[in-house]
């Protein structure tokens, strides 16, 4: 008689469950296969034939094993699965965006103090913002990694503030709510450079330490 437990374990592949839960699932599915086999034998089918019928069933389910593993994980950890995107992207992205915008507002407030009037906004706002932005990118990527996201999503979470700014800017330009002064290409490039490219580079700098190859934490 085949080792049903080994067969079920092999077909399911690694499950994102605790080792105790995985063992329990494998044992239960193996028991089901064993019962199926015993049922065939009970019907008067020879042992070798019963084994063949059961293995045929397993092969017929070939495409279903992957779905079965996924559905079992989903059923056992329904809430976590439903909130995965929130944990991986939206929450870390919003933290990164909020931090970046709050810092920008504070810097703008500081630059408007009477004793600082007349000094360049580049010096008072943009440069300090760019220096602080890696912290925001790092926070986004770190939280995303902690939530178990893969590298691509961690990068998106880190760059979330400039993704939002770029989207918003594009909408404003396309709807002509913002019109660049002439020559358009020069001021447009300047806006993209100062508002998107440089902040993106700063955010990326902060996110880099969290984009390594560390395996995402399993949903346990």
């Amino acid at each position, binding site marked *: 008689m085949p080792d049903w437990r080994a067969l079920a374990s092999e077909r399911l592949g690694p499950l994102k469950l605790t080792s105790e839960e995985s063992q329990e*699932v494998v044992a239960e599915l193996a028991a*089901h296969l064993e019962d199926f086999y015993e049922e065939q034998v009970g019907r008067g089918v020879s042992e070798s034939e019963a084994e063949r019928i059961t293995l045929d069933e397993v092969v017929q389910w070939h495409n279903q*094993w992957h779905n*079965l593993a996924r559905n*079992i994980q989903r059923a056992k950890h*329904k809430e976590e699965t439903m909130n995965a995107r929130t944990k991986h992207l939206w929450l870390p992205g919003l933290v990164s965006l909020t931090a970046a915008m709050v810092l920008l507002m504070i810097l703008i407030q500081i630059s408007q103090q009477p004793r600082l009037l007349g000094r360049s906004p580049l010096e008072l706002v943009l440069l300090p913002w760019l220096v602080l932005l890696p912290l925001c990118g790092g926070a986004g990527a770190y939280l995303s990694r902690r939530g178990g996201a893969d590298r691509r999503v961690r990068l998106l979470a880190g760059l979330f503030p400039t993704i939002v700014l770029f989207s918003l800017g594009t909408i404003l330009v396309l709807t002509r709510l913002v019109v660049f002064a002439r020559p358009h290409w020069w001021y447009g490039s300047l806006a993209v450079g100062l508002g998107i490219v440089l902040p993106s580079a700063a955010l990326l700098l902060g996110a880099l330490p969290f984009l390594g190859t560390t395996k995402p934490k399993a949903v346990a």
Partner: protein
Amino acid sequence: MHKRIRSKIARGSAELAILALLAEQPLYGFDISKRIEEKTGGALHFTLASLYPMLYDLEKRGWIAGRWEANHAGRDRRYYCLTSTGKKELVPLRREWNFFFQALDRLAGVTNA
């Protein structure tokens, strides 16, 4: 034997079938699938792939609870029983399906078909 019903209604009724069966006595996975197939004349049929995710889902909701016990042959099997929450949930579920089939009967005369 009735032709197997492969519809969303059949899938939706699967929960009710499992809960109703477990209301009678604790059963393990293979036994559940076998009894449902027998009792419905094959109209409802569970495969391993459809049964266990549903059992784990019901367990996660706290409607059923599983524990390992030896079966009549002395082999360890995971027996599921209905919890008090499951018993409470079964009452409105039965009522809803009853209402649904009565409505369908009034509309299409399904019981006399």
